């Protein structure tokens, strides 16, 4: 039983950190540090949840989780219905998460391969990016072993040369820092529970932090203002035709990005960050080691 309590404590720690991260303002000033904390917290939460279910379910065996799992086939008859249900739930959850991640990776890879092929057929290679001949303004990065940076003719027309350079630097930052790998596990989780408002919010937060990382990187070489004005143009252009109801959101992610580029906050690095990292890593370590240690 003691195993399950440890796991629950680790899980509760992770939940507390998630709540803190969702509420904090410093994350916009230090997006990279926030992303690191998000990643280890997410992992801790999942490991601890599975660990708690298995820890409770396998408690009658009085072993570590993995040794107890090995005993399971032979001694499953000794478990009462509650313990059995917990074990089944834990194993199902673990399997479900793994299968979902693999399926998402596969479908993303397929979508990217198709996109890459079509780009090859219809996009015009320019020195700085691939150009798709369409009046709508878009700029994006297709990740992969050789990432492709793509702009539409509309984006070229919408932006000045300096702005376009900054936007392309932003996209190259995505490619170089492999941001798609940061976002992918969270997006896969959301696909598992598409109705979850909390998960949707978490994914949106992660996506925004990743954009901010790329903004920072591009701003270092191209300055903050070109990027901010490029974002503003994209924003104004898109808003022009949207139906009235869609405008109700007061502070869109794009506005948050423009604001932090225009008025960079020199807020100090939060002292809580190293502490939170340490606590979560301890929780993760405890949680994971309980799988292996033969008690």
């Amino acid at each position: 039983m003691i195993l399950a309590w440890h796991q629950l404590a680790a899980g509760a720690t992770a939940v507390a950190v998630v709540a803190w991260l969702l509420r904090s303002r410093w994350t916009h000033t230090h997006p990279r540090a926030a992303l690191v904390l998000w990643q280890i917290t997410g992992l801790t939460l999942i490991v601890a949840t599975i660990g708690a279910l298995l820890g409770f379910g396998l408690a009658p065996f009085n072993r570590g989780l993995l040794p107890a799992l090995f005993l399971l086939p032979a001694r499953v008859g000794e478990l009462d219905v509650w313990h059995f249900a917990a074990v089944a739930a834990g194993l199902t959850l673990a399997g479900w998460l793994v299968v979902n991640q693999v399926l998402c990776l596969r479908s993303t890879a397929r979508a990217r391969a198709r996109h890459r092929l079509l780009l090859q057929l219809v996009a015009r290679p320019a020195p700085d990016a691939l150009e798709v001949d369409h009046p709508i303004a878009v700029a994006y990065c297709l990740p992969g072993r050789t990432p492709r940076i793509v702009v539409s003719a509309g984006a070229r027309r919408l932006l000045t040369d300096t702005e376009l350079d900054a936007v392309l630097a932003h996209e190259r930052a995505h490619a170089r820092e492999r941001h798609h790998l940061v976002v992918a596990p969270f997006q896969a989780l959301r696909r598992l529970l598409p109705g979850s408002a909390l998960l949707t919010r978490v994914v949106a937060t992660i996506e925004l932090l990743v954009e901010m990382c790329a903004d920072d990187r591009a701003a270092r070489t191209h300055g903050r203002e070109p990027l901010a004005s490029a974002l503003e143009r994209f924003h104004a252009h898109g808003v022009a035709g949207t139906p009235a109801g869609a405008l109700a959101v007061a502070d869109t992610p794009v506005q948050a990005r423009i604001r932090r580029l225009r008025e960079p906050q020199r807020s100090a690095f939060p002292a809580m960050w190293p502490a939170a990292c340490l606590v979560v890593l301890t929780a993760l370590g405890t949680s994971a080691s309980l799988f292996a240690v033969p008690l």
Partner: protein
Amino acid sequence: MDVARLGELERAVMEVLWASQEPASVRAVHAALADRGLAYTTVMTVLTRLAAKNVVRRERAGRAWLYAPAASREEYVAELMLEALELTGDRGSALVRFAQSVTSDEADALRQALERGEKT
């Protein structure tokens, strides 16, 4: 043949097929690309690859295969743009975007472009 050159050839072959009013034979595509000095077998390989990737349809006419684009250039552009604008319904994660700006009219136009292609 290196990958970059192969990609460039695929593009050139598609241009020929899009320009042609009716399905074209390997010989016709080869003739249209005569100024590149390509081997007949190279053109055949590229067409076979494109057919395997489902961007080109092929049908038999007598003893020869005839090739036609599976969709128009505009439809492929529309498909790319819908995905780039995250309008495909599947909120996937294939791309990392800078910022999106699209009006609902523009989105409708893109969807119609694709639907038109599917009907024909």
